């Protein structure tokens, strides 16, 4: 039999794109194994990865059709009818009938790749056209094995392992052929197995016992819809009658003929490729839906964790800004010294410059006060000492307004938010940092803060210098100072030449020099005061501006770095699921599936 060409082999299927998507799914699902929800996604992936891989590798291999249904629904009778001979024991002698699965294959079909020993299957060959291009498996029933939760009561059925066996066979099946009767189409135990194995597997539905039971197909379809399964076609036939006719070589009855035609058109040759491809697409879609189902309740908590990190960071930065600002404001002498040193260093060559250098040199003789605290040391341009270990580490950041209690408060809040998002160790640490973590994060914080503060102070100082240092001002100062020297010396010269030599008045000895020196120094100090007050003006405002920039500098990050990283990684994981979903949807949109009579799990739930 050759499949008719009317059905496309899943035209538009982008094999390379799908391979890429599978690769992405694999990488993504394994990318955050420290996060339990991601681990669950990975476990889900491990369940489908093998099947997706096989579907791609075995694109043109014949399909394995598993015949599934409750006991007594006539699975074996149907298999016998399809096989054209008595291959599987059927009948009403004792329930359950089929214990070991029977695999029906055509003589020329190689089924060595099926793990027949693993499922304890018996293989029979058949020449019947209906099974010429498929592998048919008569499966055990799921409804005679008791619930494992029930205590064993020494009943004969305690040894019944039919459902376990079924669950070993079904993973090998590509297509499920569901057989039901009027008594069994609403069976809960069958529905449970179908729900577990329908993802990525096309379904064929058959109502048997047509000669005895009423037609329940409409109600069955409704029931399937309720379970989230689409069933475009449900076949209805009488297995016994079909088998009798097949054995006698008679023309098959219409229902059976329709089933055989359906198998031939939808499962054989190019159609098999199509089934595998759409099945793989469906399976990937199902996996992503499951993954989204896992992640959905965590979206909000993950976002909350991120915003919690942000607000705790702001809180700590606020504390830090206030403390640093206070410290900077009260360190007036240190500021003055920095500003002076800066100015003095740049003014050379004039008498006033010489005067400034001289006062600075004299000032240097004055014993400098040891700069106090962290901010004082930074202001004084001194290096930052690494924090002491243990409690000393906390004390060293208390100077910048942060205490152990504040940090623990933030971390405690974040531990709660993280727990809500399923994030725990090792992705994040605990509320109380251990000694090593305290040491290292405090060191990083101090180092960063020192660098940031030093840069800020340098910038502030240079801004003020640029503002105050105009050539005119300098010239004015130099001229004014020089004028005073000239004036004082001129007066002395006048007194000497005019008064002493010319008018003959007595000299005042060296006294005039002392007088001159006093005036010059006084004048110099006045000028110096004017210059420096100009530089100092508006310092407080500038300090506020400097500190306002602190929150952007991410100085407190080391204290909550684990939470920030966890928030980012989990958010990225969740966002990646949406991206992959969109990619899958784009791939699926390009595939023209044609019309199919096969049932399947609805793409978007019931």
């Amino acid at each position, binding site marked *: 039999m050759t499949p008719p060409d009317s059905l496309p082999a899943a035209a538009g299927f982008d094999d390379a794109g799908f391979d890429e998507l599978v690769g992405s799914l694999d990488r993504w699902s394994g990318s955050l194994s420290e996060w339990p929800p991601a681990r669950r996604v990975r476990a889900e992936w491990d369940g489908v990865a093998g099947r997706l891989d096989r579907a791609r590798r075995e694109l043109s291999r014949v399909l394995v059709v598993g015949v599934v249904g*409750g*006991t*007594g*629904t006539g699975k074996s009778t149907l298999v016998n009818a399809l096989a054209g001979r008595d291959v599987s024991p059927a009948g*009403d*002698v*004792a*329930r*359950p009938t089929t214990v070991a699965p029977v695999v029906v294959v055509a003589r020329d079909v190689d089924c060595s790749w099926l793990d027949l020993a693993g499922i304890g299957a018996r293989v029979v060959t058949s020449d019947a056209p209906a099974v010429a291009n498929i592998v048919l498996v008569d499966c055990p029933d799921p*409804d*005679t*094995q*008791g*619930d494992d939760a*029930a205590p064993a*009561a020494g*009943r*004969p*059925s305690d040894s019944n392992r039919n459902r376990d066996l079924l669950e070993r066979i079904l993973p090998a099946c590509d297509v499920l052929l569901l057989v039901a*009767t*009027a*008594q*069994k*189409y*609403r*069976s*809960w*135990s069958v*529905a449970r197995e179908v729900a577990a194995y329908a993802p990525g597997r096309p379904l064929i539905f058959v109502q048997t016992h047509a000669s*005895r*039971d*009423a*037609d*329940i197909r409409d*109600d069955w379809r409704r*029931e399937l819809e*309720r*379970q989230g399964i689409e069933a475009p076609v449900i076949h209805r036939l009488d297995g016994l009658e079909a088998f009798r006719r097949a054995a006698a070589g008679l023309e098959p009855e219409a229902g059976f003929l329709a089933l055989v035609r359906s198998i031939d058109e939808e499962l054989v040759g190019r159609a098999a490729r199509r089934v595998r491809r759409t099945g793989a697409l469906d399976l990937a879609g199902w996996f992503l839906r499951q993954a989204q189902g896992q992640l959905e309740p965590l979206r909000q908590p993950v976002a909350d964790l991120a915003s*919690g990190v942000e*607000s*705790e960071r702001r809180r700590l930065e606020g504390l830090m800004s206030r403390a640093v600002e206070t410290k900077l404001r009260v360190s007036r002498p240190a500021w003055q010294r920095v500003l002076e040193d800066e100015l003095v260093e740049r003014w050379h060559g004039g008498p006033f410059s010489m005067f400034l250098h001289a006062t600075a040199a004299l000032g240097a003789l004055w014993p400098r006060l040891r700069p106090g605290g962290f901010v004082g040391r930074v202001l004084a341009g001194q290096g930052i000492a690494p924090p002491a270990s243990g409690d000393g580490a906390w004390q060293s950041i208390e100077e910048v307004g942060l*205490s*152990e*209690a*504040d940090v*623990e*408060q933030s*971390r*405690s*809040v974040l*531990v*709660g*938010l993280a*727990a*809500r998002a399923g994030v725990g160790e090792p992705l994040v640490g*605990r*509320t*109380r940092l251990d000694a090593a973590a305290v040491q290292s994060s405090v060191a990083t914080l101090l180092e960063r803060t020192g660098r940031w503060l030093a840069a800020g102070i340098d910038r502030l100082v240079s801004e003020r210098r640029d503002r105050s240092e105009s050539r005119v001002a300098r010239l004015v100062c130099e001229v004014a100072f020089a004028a005073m020297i000239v004036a004082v010396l001129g007066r002395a010269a006048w007194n000497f030449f005019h008064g002493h030599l010319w008018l003959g008045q007595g000299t005042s000895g060296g006294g005039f020099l002392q007088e001159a020196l006093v005036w010059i120094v006084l004048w110099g100090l006045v000028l110096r005061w004017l210059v420096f007050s100009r530089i100092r003006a508006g310092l407080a405002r500038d300090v506020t501006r400097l500190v306002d920039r602190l929150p952007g500098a991410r100085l407190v990050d080391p204290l909550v770095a684990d939470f920030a990283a966890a928030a980012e990684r989990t958010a990225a994981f969740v966002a990646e699921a949406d991206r992959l979903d969109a990619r899958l949807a784009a791939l699926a949109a390009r595939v023209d599936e044609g019309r199919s009579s096969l049932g399947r799990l609805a793409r978007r739930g019931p």
Partner: protein
Amino acid sequence: MDSRDPPPDDASLHAAWSGRVGELCDLAERLLPLAMELGVDPPPPDDAAGPIDGGDWRGQLFGKLRPQAGGEPVLVAAVCGGTNTGKSLITNVLAGAEISRSLPEAARTRRPVASLPRALGGRVDLAALFPGFTPVPWADEEDALGGAEGDDVVVWREDPGGRQPARLILVDTPDVDGTLRGNWQRAEAIRNACDVIVAVLTQQKYNDAAVRDFFAAAAAAGKTLVVVFNMVDWPAQRGRIGGWLATFVAETGAAPLAVYAVPHDFARAAAATIEFHPLPELVGGAPAAGPVDLAAELAGADFDRIKVRAMRGAFRVVVDPQAGMGAWLDRIEAASRGWQDSRRLLAEEARVRVELPAAPGDLVWNEIWNWLEPRRSRIDVGLSRVYRAASGGMAWLGRRAGLLRSAEDRRDEFAAEELRALKAGLADFIDRLDGAARRDPRLAAVLGPTLVAGDRAAWYAELERRHAALPMISDDYRTFVRTELDRFSSENPNVLRVVLTGLSVGSVARPCITVGLLVAGAAAVPAAAAAGHGISTLVHTSFDYVVWAAAPLVGEGVLGLTVAGIRPLVERLFAGWSAERSRVLTGTLHDVVLGDRLEVVERRAAAGSREEVARARRLLLDGARELDA
């Protein structure tokens, strides 16, 4: 029928039971919420909203023994089986009227339908007979089909033909194996309430696990089973029925009273004239000739014997040591022991040491001075005023010079430091709760929702709010100081004189105290200081933390160092102050963080030793002894 059963006239037996049954029900009802809390009883599954769950002892106790132990002895016969096996058809035939619509689609009967003999409707309380169901009078045969999921209604109708035996109630039940789990549950509730079960089996379903389990539970509860094999290819399959029945009996442990076969026949089914072929040879009788009237056979059964047997069977399920109420009590006790371990873990883990900063001594001392003021001599007071003014002046100078800070500054700083310490204590406490929940799944279940879903930032905000609202010296504390001092002075009148003497020394030295305030040492303070300050017996502050005795070197210190007996008093006063401050933390923990969680742990840990458990055990023991006698 079981030959071990006593003669049916033993009616006094279940009259004696009815008291015991009532008390057992009462005890079970009182313990049930606790058992659910302890996880002994799984919460009912979402898809199975039903009256009373399971075929277990509770189903028998509440569904059978309680409603039937006292009232008029009626016999309830229920027709049960899998989907689409013809239960409704058989019920209709037995009732002699179409009370329940029989349809080709499966699982259509969602509500049980009861057919009552004439005039019984007014006498019997159906709501009590079928606990959990609401009785609704029959309107038409579609009644059985309707009803939303979770609607627990039993439809009833009095037999229109008048054929039904006077004490027999016939019930058509929903299926026991379909995809609607609510149907299973309703069927189980009816099964528990009935005495006789007409088990409708078919060739396809007699060995399905769900069907087996349903009837096995019925057999275990002493129900009388009548087996009907429906849709048999008659007579072709007649020879097979023996094998099917043997399997069914071996699987369920049932001993059917009788077995019938109903041939598959569309025409007769449509006309509701199906034939019941008795197969007495399968239950040890002589082969019968032809079809019989099953309704008549049922009517002829020995009602009293069946009834007593059903009641005894139900009671046997309740007293069964492996699966009965006793086992349930065992599980409650075991679970309770687990909670005792959790309680121990919590007590060990959740203990935090908060080291509060040294209290500003002047606060407490001011209170002491205020108490002493009226008891001092005039000269003393005058002198004291002079020095107080001098001290104020010196303090002002000191502050100007930057050597001293103002009292306000110190208090602000103290408050900030104290808040920090309290916050650190809260963080530590939460961390320890997290740790305890990690180590113990039971604690995780109780504390988890609080720890995970709670808004921790709000907890800290609440702590801050309470701290800010707390005055430095509260009225409570003033009262506490006065009571302590009054008590002390009445107990030690001589010492008080010493205090007064000491004060004149103290008042001279007083100007120096603001400078010399230093930590003198740590002292363990007796819990008496906390009298009346506990918030709950569960969150308790044991006040064993270090209270820095802020005694100055001179001035007040002179008192503390020189006068024996005063020092413990002063320490207690300081401790009382710190205790009151720390109430901010314990209060936040109790009111905001923990809520009722500790009470929950406590209640669960104590569950096993409740008197209900012991009483129920005694009743069960007595009942079992009587049953065996």
